[in-house]
């Protein structure tokens, strides 16, 4: 039983990171019906920028101070949000009324551009994060080992998701976002500036992605330029499992994916871990083609 709960704790941490990144896919899809394939790379960009802030402000071997860590998150979020907006303006907006495939190709191109850009700026090698960015103490509760980094990652992710949920559902601008997701033309007739809504989605999604990316770097203590592909793919699957376009769905999908990955790796086979995950995706889509929460269109964003 201890092992089971240990696997749950492991899965929950990864799952909450997937969920953070999945939100970016789902929000963009909700409004533009576009899969932003560059989103995984935006998250990785966040990891690299955070790392640069931390290493340039901290001496070698020393643990970074709280202020440096907070600054790293703030700078990563700002830069990646700006990158997200630029991406929208240059790669997606000119193709808004073009064929759907053109936008997909543009998204894939943007992904390669970002990935190779990161490689050129930060080198193709694996970069390591210093220790002690977030406190790392082991707590043993009933045989289950919980690391304080894990706890912080899960807690911050949940807070951010809650904040996003409240923002979208309880504020005036959130209502505009939901309205644009349902019908852009009608929203425009109601006086909503849909372009502003779209830009806001390209700020919020990448900002959350940047935090997710920085969490990956801190949790695994390394960053490679091409890791956006695998994390992007996993987050994309998470968004689909939950019902793409649906914000609570992305959160649920991320957590489920993390948990399932962890349990499959622990109980069935670590070799087939990823294959089993894809089998789950197919199974869910067969039973519920719109994802677990997909049919609640009124809430989709």
């Amino acid at each position, binding site marked *: 039983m201890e*092992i089971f709960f*240990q*696997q749950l704790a*492991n*899965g929950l941490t*990864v799952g909450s990171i997937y969920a953070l990144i999945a939100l970016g896919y789902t929000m963009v899809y909700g409004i533009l019906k576009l899969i932003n394939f560059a989103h995984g790379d935006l998250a990785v960009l966040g990891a690299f920028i955070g790392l640069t802030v931390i290493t340039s402000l901290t001496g070698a071997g020393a643990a970074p101070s709280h202020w440096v860590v907070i600054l790293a998150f703030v700078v990563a979020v700002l830069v990646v949000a700006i990158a997200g907006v630029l991406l929208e303006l240059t790669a997606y907006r000119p193709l808004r009324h073009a064929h759907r495939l053109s936008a997909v190709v543009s998204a894939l191109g943007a992904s390669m551009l970002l990935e190779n850009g990161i*490689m050129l700026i930060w*080198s*193709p*090698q*694996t970069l*390591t994060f210093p*220790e002690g960015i977030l406190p*790392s103490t*082991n707590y*043993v509760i009933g045989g289950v*080992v919980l*690391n304080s*980094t*894990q706890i912080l990652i899960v807690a911050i992710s949940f807070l951010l998701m809650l904040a996003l949920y409240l923002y979208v559902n309880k504020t005036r601008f959130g209502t505009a976002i939901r309205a644009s997701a349902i019908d852009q033309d009608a929203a425009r007739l109601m006086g909503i500036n849909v372009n502003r809504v779209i830009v806001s989605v390209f700020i919020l999604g990448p900002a959350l992605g940047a935090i997710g990316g920085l969490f*990956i770097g801190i949790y*695994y*203590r*390394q960053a*490679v330029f*091409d*890791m956006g592909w*695998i994390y992007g793919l996993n987050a994309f699957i998470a968004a689909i499992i939950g019902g793409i376009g649906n914000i609570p769905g992305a959160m649920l999908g991320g957590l489920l994916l993390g948990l399932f*990955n*962890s*349990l*499959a*790796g*622990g*109980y069935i086979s*670590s*070799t087939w*871990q*990823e294959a089993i995950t894809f089998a789950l995706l197919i199974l869910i889509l067969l039973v519920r083609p719109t994802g677990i929460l997909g049919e609640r269109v009124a809430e989709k964003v």
Partner: protein
Amino acid sequence: MFKLKTLVAATAISLGMSATAMAAGTVTFGVQAPITGQYANEGQGIEKAVKLLAKQLNDKGGLLGKTVKVVSCDDEGKATQGALCARNLSNQNVFAVIGTYTSGAAGAAQPIYARANILQTSDGTAEQLTQHGYKLFFRNAPPNSAEAKFTGEYLVKGKHYKRIAVLSDHSSFSKGLGDAVDEAVKKEGGNVVFRGYINAGSQDYRSVLTTVKSKNPDVIYFSGYYSDGGLLRSQEKDLDINADFVGGDANQNVKFAQIAGQAATGTVIVNVPAPENLPYKEAKDFLADYKSMYGELPPSIFTLTNADGMRAIVKAVEATKSFDPNKVADYLHNLRNFPGITGPMGFDKHGERLGSAFQAFEIQPDGSYKTVYPTH
């Protein structure tokens, strides 16, 4: 008309390439290595070492009077890219190819070089690389079996571990080494309580480690690469697993300790000695030259075994006064006690390296290595 002329000229050049390459006074060495990607560190080291050796040869007047030229191809450590590189380098009429780092990419390239009559020397340690009967292939690092035999002895007789867990990734190198260690441990009378796999590069190994924990091992042996090994070690500590950690040779890289962080201390790595711990004069000279050219030390011993592969080929060319790959190969198959950077070496008739001493090193708090086995 102009185009036609160029075409004729190009055809003439390509037809007469092998002859003109000799006559024109250049000899080309190919480097096939993972210059980008997961093992970029290692690949760049190999490329730098070959360029350094080429420069040294050219400074002395070349090889048999010919200028040594180096062309590189990045195989990203992948088998598919390895095959593409082999075609690419074959088309450039290289005389010999140094590299590559991963057994998968080396194996994919082997038949192509063999058909093109090109010498190849790789550090790939998967057993089968020397079992295909390719006459022009020379392994410059000891194979998995030599390492596995030593590791089994170290775990069972040296440390008296009672419950041993063996982890690998799915690369041909890591799986081969893991299987061989599993076998060697059992042969020594040891007890393997867990044999499992990770997916290299997936970064999260907590689920398999949690399963390992339930088997209560006193040591975890990992036969994969440093980037995963460092993560395994740090996640092992995150999960409060108290087992020692012993890593195979591909864990020996400065990045291992950076990734594992504080958890690196006390980790043991089985390998031939680290570059800076090599006692030989050839090693000290080469390291000094490498450092003065690049301002850094080579990333790992594999930079140096590949350099030794190239040095052995150069030695054979000089001794036979010939660029005939078959003559050079015949000489190499009988080479004994050649003073290599990584120790006295030679090759048997299968192209297998002769002469190597494995050691077990413990990582110290300052990141340096201390030999803990054999104790003499």
